[in-house]
């Protein structure tokens, strides 16, 4: 790696909550064992599919924050518990005003808005205490994070559909580059809701079976939910965020450019920003939604970006937790950080039998590997693409 690449920004702590568990250790243990966690949705939707459901009763927010309480904010609270010591240390080290918050979400607490709407339709009144600004909106998400962390730097929510939290990393990197902050709590959160499930069904993209990214038998997406956070600091120990690249397809609202040019541009921009060469990419955590179209497009774009000389391990982790939408970039970043820290890569569950057209090295079981540089992709409605490059601890 070049000197430029060595600079990066260390990720000094991270955590996640998703269908594999409510602690990072639980999640990573399941990932390592190749145990997917997908089940029928709990929302009463008349839809035959399976989802990555957080199937645990998480604690409500404290009394003084109850106006922000939602399924989404409980994911956030749970994920923050594990990194609270690191956050305290960052606040002490840099000062609360020099630590920012950048969080991505696609729907925030839309499930709570759906519920309030239905109660209003049945009773003529919104639920007692319901406030669409505070408990159902992105403002509520930001305020929850401020209240739970005591951080006083810039606080932004990004909502670029399924690229939201990946783009939060890109923005956080720019904040650090510009000297606006010395550390950023970056992450994402999304919870299951009816609009999402019915919407993806309307597009004909939902799979009735567990999703199988990169398999010749792939049938579509499973939707998931959860949250993940990472603490980026100007200096410190840990795997590093080396670079970020973003692009737009300028093609179609829901269908990616079939030639993968937008995806290729974001990967190339991330690799360039990281100051590494394409051949150095050891591992790609793909967007890998399990639709016929996305996986073919993404495989084409990866091959075109990295070139014939490269042979990275390519994995989609959506077979474990589903597509967690706005949280996906952050959750998959945590998976990548674990790989860089501990020297292994999860299997791309469901990929067997591999679609021969994919043309990539896709393991279906976990493999030990000395991963030095990894790339993670997130693509979204509106043709919004983001790629992140992470490096192993020095």
């Amino acid at each position, binding site marked *: 790696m070049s000197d430029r690449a060595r600079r990066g920004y260390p990720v000094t702590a991270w955590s996640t909550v998703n269908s594999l568990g409510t602690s990072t250790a639980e999640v990573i243990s399941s990932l390592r064992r190749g145990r997917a966690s997908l089940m029928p949705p709990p929302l009463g939707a008349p839809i035959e599919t399976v989802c990555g459901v957080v199937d645990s009763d998480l604690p409500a927010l404290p009394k003084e924050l109850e106006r922000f309480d939602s399924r989404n904010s409980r994911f956030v609270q749970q994920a923050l518990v594990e990194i609270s010591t690191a956050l305290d240390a960052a606040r002490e080290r840099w000062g609360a005003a020099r630590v920012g918050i950048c969080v991505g979400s696609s729907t925030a607490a839309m499930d709570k808005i759906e519920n309030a709407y239905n109660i209003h339709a049945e009773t003529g009144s919104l639920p007692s205490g319901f406030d669409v600004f505070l408990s159902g909106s992105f403002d509520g998400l930001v305020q929850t994070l401020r209240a739970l962390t005591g951080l006083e730097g810039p606080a932004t929510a990004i*909502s*670029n559909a399924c690229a939201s939290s990946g783009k939060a990393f890109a923005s956080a990197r720019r*904040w650090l580059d510009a000297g606006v902050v010395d550390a950023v709590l970056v992450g994402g959160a999304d919870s299951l809701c009816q609009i999402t499930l019915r*919407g993806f069904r309307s*597009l004909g993209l939902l799979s009735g079976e567990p999703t199988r990214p990169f398999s010749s038998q792939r049938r579509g997406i499973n939707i998931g939910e959860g949250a993940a956070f990472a603490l980026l600091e100007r200096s410190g120990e840990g795997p590093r965020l080396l670079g970020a690249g*973003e692009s737009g397809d*300028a093609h179609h*609202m829901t269908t990616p450019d079939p030639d993968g040019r937008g995806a290729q541009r974001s990967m190339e921009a991330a690799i360039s920003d990281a100051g590494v060469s394409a051949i150095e990419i050891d591992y790609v955590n793909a967007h890998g939604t399990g639709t016929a179209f996305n996986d073919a497009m993404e495989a084409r774009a990866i091959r075109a970006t990295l070139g014939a000389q490269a042979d990275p391990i390519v994995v989609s982790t959506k077979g474990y937790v589903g597509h967690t939408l706005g949280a996906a970039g952050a959750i998959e970043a945590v998976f990548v950080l674990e790989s860089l820290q501990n020297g292994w890569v999860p299997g791309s569950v469901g990929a067997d039998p591999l679609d021969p057209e994919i043309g990539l090295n896709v393991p279906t079981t976990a493999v030990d590997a000395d991963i030095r540089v990894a790339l993670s992709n997130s693509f979204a409605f509106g043709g919004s693409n983001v790629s992140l490059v992470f490096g192993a601890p020095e």
Partner: protein
Amino acid sequence: MKPVYVRGLGFWTPGFASPEAWCRGEPDPSVDVPDAALLSGPLRRRATGLTRVAVEVLQQAIRTLDCDVATIPIIWATAHGEHTNAIKILGMMRSGEGKLSPTHFHNSVHNTASGYASIALGNCSPSTTVTGGVELVASSFLEAVCHLEAAAEDAVVVLADEPLQPPFHYSEGASPLALAFGLSSRSEGAGAVLTDFRRDVIAPVKPRDRFGPLYVGGGLPLLERIVLRRPGTVALEVASERAGPIHCVDLELLET
């Protein structure tokens, strides 16, 4: 941080189709639907009301920015996003229509306007949609400023929101509001320059009755003072329960 030059502005609300008309207080009753000519026929037919107002002010701001529209980063800011469309979808689900149309669904994401505009302009830039509450306007400027600090020569901030719809209405009868700022590292042709984005103890922006509590209204004083040539420190936050310093910026005027 580098100074940020303002080289383009955009404004739209019913009755007012330009920053100058708004600042002069000269309503035109014929202004009821935004032109959004940037969108081709098929795109315009599918676009939501929020997307149309956002695209309208974008095209106003880039008119004088003299930029490469294919590469310029565009920062979209909206607190409620496609709330009006989401309420329609909830009604459809409730009434048993069940299946949504793909258009209704893809028009429900916060970055809907960004998607439509990128297709219309052939814009492949790293555009971002920021959302939130009282810090929304400051967040959008932060994104743009960081792009300018990095590699971008120009960037546009588009602020757009519609009043919340029943049963969630906070501001029945309020108007949609959209404003845009064409920002640049280049001083040529700029009428104003922004320096020292910070938090300070100054009075926040008072909500206007016409727009209710729309957070994007936090950008109104900046636009008005640029048009009316009134320099000084300008607040970027609407009044809220939040105590302490608020986001603001220094505005200086330039000879054009």
